[in-house]
C-alpha cells in the first residue's frame, strides 16, 4: 500500500486551497474504486503522492439538476444515483443504462462520475453516452474556471489535460428528446463486474415521416479516445432506419476504428464485433428486430 496523509476538505474552496498548496503531490480521491486498487498495487505513477484529498463528502459536488435546456451533474455523484435519477431516465436513458453497467452494486454506491472521467479509462462505460451528448466539464482552480468538452479533455488512454491545481466540479449536456431512440450496448466477459470489452451508445431522432434528423454513434473501449463517428452518422442523416443500412453503418464504424488504431492482434476479433454491436444498438434504438 502506498502511504499518504489524508485531508478531507468540507468545501470546494478548501479543496482548491489544498490543491494549490500541494500541487502535484496531492491526489484527489472521489469514490476511490480505481485509486484503492492502484494504491494497493503501489502503482509507479502514484509514487510521489504525499497526500490524498478526499472529496467524497463535499456536498457541493453531489447533485443532479435540470436547468432549462441543460442537465448538470456534480462530479461526486455516484453511479447508483445516476442510474436511478428520474431526470436522467427521461432525457438521457442511455446514460443511466451505462451507469447501471458499471462494476457491481457495491462499486456503484461509491464510484463517481467525476472520478471515472478523471481516470480516463478507455474502457469507460459512461464515456460513450456522455460523448454522444457532446458533454462539457466545468473545472475550477484557484485561478478561475474553465469549461471544456469531454472529448477534448480526454487526450488518450488514462490521459487528460487536467492541471495539478484543478478540480472537476461538474459535467453538463443538453437534454435530448425523450421521444427519440436511445441504446447502450455493452459486451463484457460476464454481466456484473465486467470491464467493457466494447460498448456503444447510440441516439437516433426521427421526424414525423420517420426520417433521421439527429444521430449520435459513439463506440467505446476500442479507441484511445472515445468520440462520435461522424462518418457513420452522416450515412444515417436523412435516411429511414433499416436493417441493411444499420449493418452498413456498423461496418463503417469498424472501418473508422481500424483507421485510427491500425491492424492489431485483436483486430480480427474487434472489427466484426464492433460492427455487430453498432448494428444491434441502432436496431434497438429504432425498434427494428434482430434476425435470429
Amino acid at each position: 500500500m502506498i502511504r499518504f496523509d489524508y485531508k478531507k476538505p468540507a468545501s470546494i474552496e478548501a479543496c482548491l486551497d489544498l490543491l494549490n498548496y500541494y500541487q502535484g503531490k496531492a491526489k484527489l480521491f472521489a469514490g476511490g474504486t480505481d485509486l484503492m486498487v492502484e494504491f494497493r498495487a503501489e502503482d509507479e505513477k502514484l509514487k510521489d503522492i504525499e497526500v490524498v484529498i478526499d472529496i467524497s463528502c463535499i456536498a457541493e459536488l453531489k447533485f443532479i439538476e435540470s436547468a432549462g435546456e441543460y442537465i448538470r451533474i456534480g462530479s461526486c455523484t455516484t453511479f447508483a444515483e445516476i442510474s436511478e435519477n428520474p431526470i436522467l431516465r427521461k432525457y438521457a436513458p442511455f446514460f443511466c443504462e451505462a451507469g447501471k453497467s458499471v462494476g457491481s452494486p457495491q462499486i456503484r454506491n461509491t464510484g463517481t462520475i467525476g472520478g471515472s472521467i478523471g481516470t480516463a479509462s478507455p474502457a469507460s462505460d459512461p464515456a460513450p453516452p456522455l460523448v454522444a451528448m457532446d458533454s462539457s466539464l466545468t473545472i475550477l482552480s484557484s485561478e478561475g474556471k474553465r469549461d471544456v468538452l469531454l472529448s477534448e479533455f480526454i487526450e488518450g488512454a488514462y490521459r487528460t489535460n487536467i492541471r495539478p491545481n484543478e478540480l472537476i466540479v461538474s459535467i453538463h449536456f443538453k437534454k435530448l428528446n425523450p421521444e427519440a431512440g436511445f441504446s447502450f450496448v455493452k459486451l463484457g466477459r460476464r454481466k456484473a463486474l465486467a470491464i467493457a470489452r466494447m460498448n456503444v451508445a447510440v441516439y437516433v431522432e426521427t421526424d414525423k415521416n420517420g426520417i433521421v434528423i439527429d444521430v449520435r454513434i459513439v463506440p467505446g473501449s476500442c479507441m484511445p479516445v472515445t468520440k462520435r463517428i461522424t462518418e457513420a452518422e452522416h450515412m444515417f442523416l436523412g435516411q429511414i432506419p433499416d436493417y441493411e443500412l444499420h449493418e452498413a453503418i456498423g461496418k463503417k464504424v469498424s472501418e473508422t476504428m481500424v483507421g485510427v488504431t491500425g491492424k492489431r492482434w485483436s483486430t480480427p476479433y474487434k472489427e466484426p464485433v464492433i460492427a455487430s454491436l453498432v448494428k444491434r444498438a441502432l436496431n434497438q434504438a429504432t425498434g427494428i428486430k434482430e434476425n435470429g
Partner: protein
Amino acid sequence: MDKIKITMIVNKQSVEAEIEPYARLLDVLRDDFGFTGVKEGCSIGECGACTVLMNGKKVNSCMVLAAQADGCEIVTIEGIEGPDGKLHPIQEAFVEAGAVQCGFCTPGMVISSYKLLSENQDPSEDDIKEAISGNLCRCTGYKQIVDAVKLAAEKMKK
C-alpha cells in the same frame, strides 16, 4: 504521517481508533476491532467478500479508506442476528438451503441479502441475482444462494 483518530458506530456500538491515514476500512474492522467475519478476498473490489453496510449502503470495505468512515455507521456480519440473539432468518435459510459450502463468501452474501430484504420483502429471482451480483461464490454455483434468499424472504414474512 500522523495517525488519525476516528469514531464509528459498528454494529450499534460506538468505537474509536487511531489509524494510519492510508488504512483501509477492511483492515481496521478486522485488525483493530476484531470483526474478522469481514473477509478479504480479491482486494480489488470484485469479489464482495468484504461487503459491509456504511450508512445503510453496501460497500466493499477494501475500497474505502478507514478515514472516510469517521462518523459513519457500519454493519458487518457480526451485527446481523435474529430477534433472539441467535441466527437471523437469512442465516438460518443459508444453512437450510445448503448455501454455505466453503463459507468464505457467506458474510458478504448475507449482507447483500440483508440489504435486499430490508428494502424488498418479496424479491423476484432477478432482484435476488442483481442484489448478489457484486458477490462471487466459487462453490455453490449460486443456485443454493438464490434459493436461500427466497427461503429467507418467506421466513421473514412470518
